[in-house]
């Protein structure tokens, strides 16, 4: 059973990678298992300067999900290149760097630095972070802004680019088309949905940032729907994410049209979830009649629907 998938810049031995922000820069998880097992690693968002992020509390649990408002805390792109990325080289796993910013210039700067470092195999352009006041989300909800930042980043990047889409939009296909036209090599979807929890005893939003990004199994149906829709209109490959916790979830994402899958929140519930999914995946694929990961991708799209309306 071959788990191999080849994507722009990423030659993956299996389609499983930890999602950005849920795995730091890999150090902590490297103490738990050999990172070499992973298909790839997507590291925490990088910005031009170091950022402290939002005040705490930064996370809250919700029904089958969680809210986070970390606020892009990171040591800045230069320190990441100097101190974090070299550590990951030893595992011989493709590294995807998540690029964040508050302006087109910042995105371009961070992307250039990372792609020139020769320590990363691809960039994930985070135009969908709901947790910072400036930048991020508005690039992810306006197709014109998304097109522009994608185009400019693509111009300077020496490695393939995956634009990470926000689900907080009415028309995800329009966003996907815009960034595909602007030259993105692939898509990464979905980021979190903006949510809030109110802490009853204190009568105020629980998160210091008030709102946070909703992730986990709660949002899986939205992720599957968006990937399914986008797959029908855009031909660049998709890294799918949103609520993956089991190998069966991975099969569902592949059927919807994802070529690989990132696992975020589930790492918190079970820090060994990525290697456990990788181990269980061949059997899950076999159970549903697939001979490889490649064989499963997009197979949830029947050429024509057999359901006819009775209206």
């Amino acid at each position: 059973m071959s788990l191999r998938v080849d994507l722009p810049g990423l030659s993956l031995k299996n389609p499983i990678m930890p999602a950005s922000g849920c795995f730091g820069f890999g150090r902590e998880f490297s103490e738990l298992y050999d990172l070499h097992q992973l298909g790839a690693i997507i590291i925490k968002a990088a910005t031009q300067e170091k950022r402290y992020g939002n005040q705490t509390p930064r996370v809250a649990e919700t029904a089958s999900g969680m809210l986070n408002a970390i606020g892009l805390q990171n040591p800045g792109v230069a320190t990441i290149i100097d101190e974090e990325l070299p550590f990951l080289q030893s595992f011989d796993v493709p590294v995807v760097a998540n690029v964040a910013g508050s302006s087109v210039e910042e995105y371009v700067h961070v992307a250039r630095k990372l792609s020139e470092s020769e320590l990363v195999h691809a960039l994930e352009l985070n135009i969908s972070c709901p947790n910072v006041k400036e930048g991020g989300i508005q690039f992810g909800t306006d197709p014109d802004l998304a097109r522009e930042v994608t185009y400019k980043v693509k111009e300077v990047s020496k490695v393939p680019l995956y634009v990470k889409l926000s689900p907080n939009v009415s028309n995800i296909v329009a966003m996907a088309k815009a960034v595909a036209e602007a030259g993105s090599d692939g898509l990464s979807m979905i980021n979190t949905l903006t949510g809030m929890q109110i802490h009853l005893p204190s009568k105020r939003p629980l998160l210091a940032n008030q709102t946070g990004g909703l992730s986990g199994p709660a949002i899986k149906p939205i992720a599957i729907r968006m990937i399914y829709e986008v797959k029908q209109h855009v031909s660049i490959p998709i890294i799918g994410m949103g609520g993956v916790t089991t190998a069966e979830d991975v099969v569902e994402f592949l059927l919807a049209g994802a070529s690989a899958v990132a696992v975020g929140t589930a790492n918190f519930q079970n820090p060994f979830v990525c290697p456990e999914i990788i181990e269980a995946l061949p059997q899950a694929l076999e159970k549903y009649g697939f001979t490889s990961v490649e064989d499963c991708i997009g197979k949830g799209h029947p050429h024509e629907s057999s359901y006819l309306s009775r209206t």
Partner: protein
Amino acid sequence: MKKAQAVLADKRKIAKDTYEMELTVEEMNVIPTPGQFAHIRIGNGSAHMLRRPISIADVDPIQNTLTIIFKVIGGGTNELSHCQVGDELDVLIGCGQGYPVEDLAIQKALLIGGGIGVPPLYYLAKRLREQGIEVTSILGFQTKEHVFYEKEFSLLGGVQIVTNDGSYGHKGFVTDVVPPVSDFGSYFTCGPTGMLKAVTHQLKGQKGYISIEERMGCGIGACYACVVPIADGEGFRKICKDGPVFKAEEVVL
């Protein structure tokens, strides 16, 4: 930090909404230090995506058991309290940095705990006594019904109980009975942030260790959910990895 399949060996309700549980852990290669926490998965399904951090309240390295004491606050601790003896629990043990019991050159220790901050101090008190250090404990609870482990602490040294409503022991806050002049080498405190602020303020200048609570995501240092700014200069610590125990003057509460 290590993932362990633990079995619930014993469960007792010891005070209002408060449970003591004894967990048998297969092989305890590394003995947890006082102040470290267990990071406990709630349920098997996807209803609860976040683990719950609960301090180690005692360890029996011979029987391979850990004791935890927790209060039912919300859905997660409620579900935990319904576990039955014999049930398996998925637990990460030995998380974080505990109190530095081995490296203390002191004769006397003052322990100040509030509510669910009391449990780690029991294991700490035991380990301090093993080092020949004298222990005095000030333990604060909401009401008489919430008081637990008074006898257990009293076997290890002097204990003063404080309740907010005065229904048992001294009425008021732990800071009301903290001795103004100190004859202890170091203090050790754990409890709600408000209490920690009051205690560190009152004991400013004394050597002390505090244990901080914060809502956690990963519990292992990877997600930046639980940061706290350091007192000197810029920068931060991760409570789950660099803490939950810090020197009193190290971080900004």
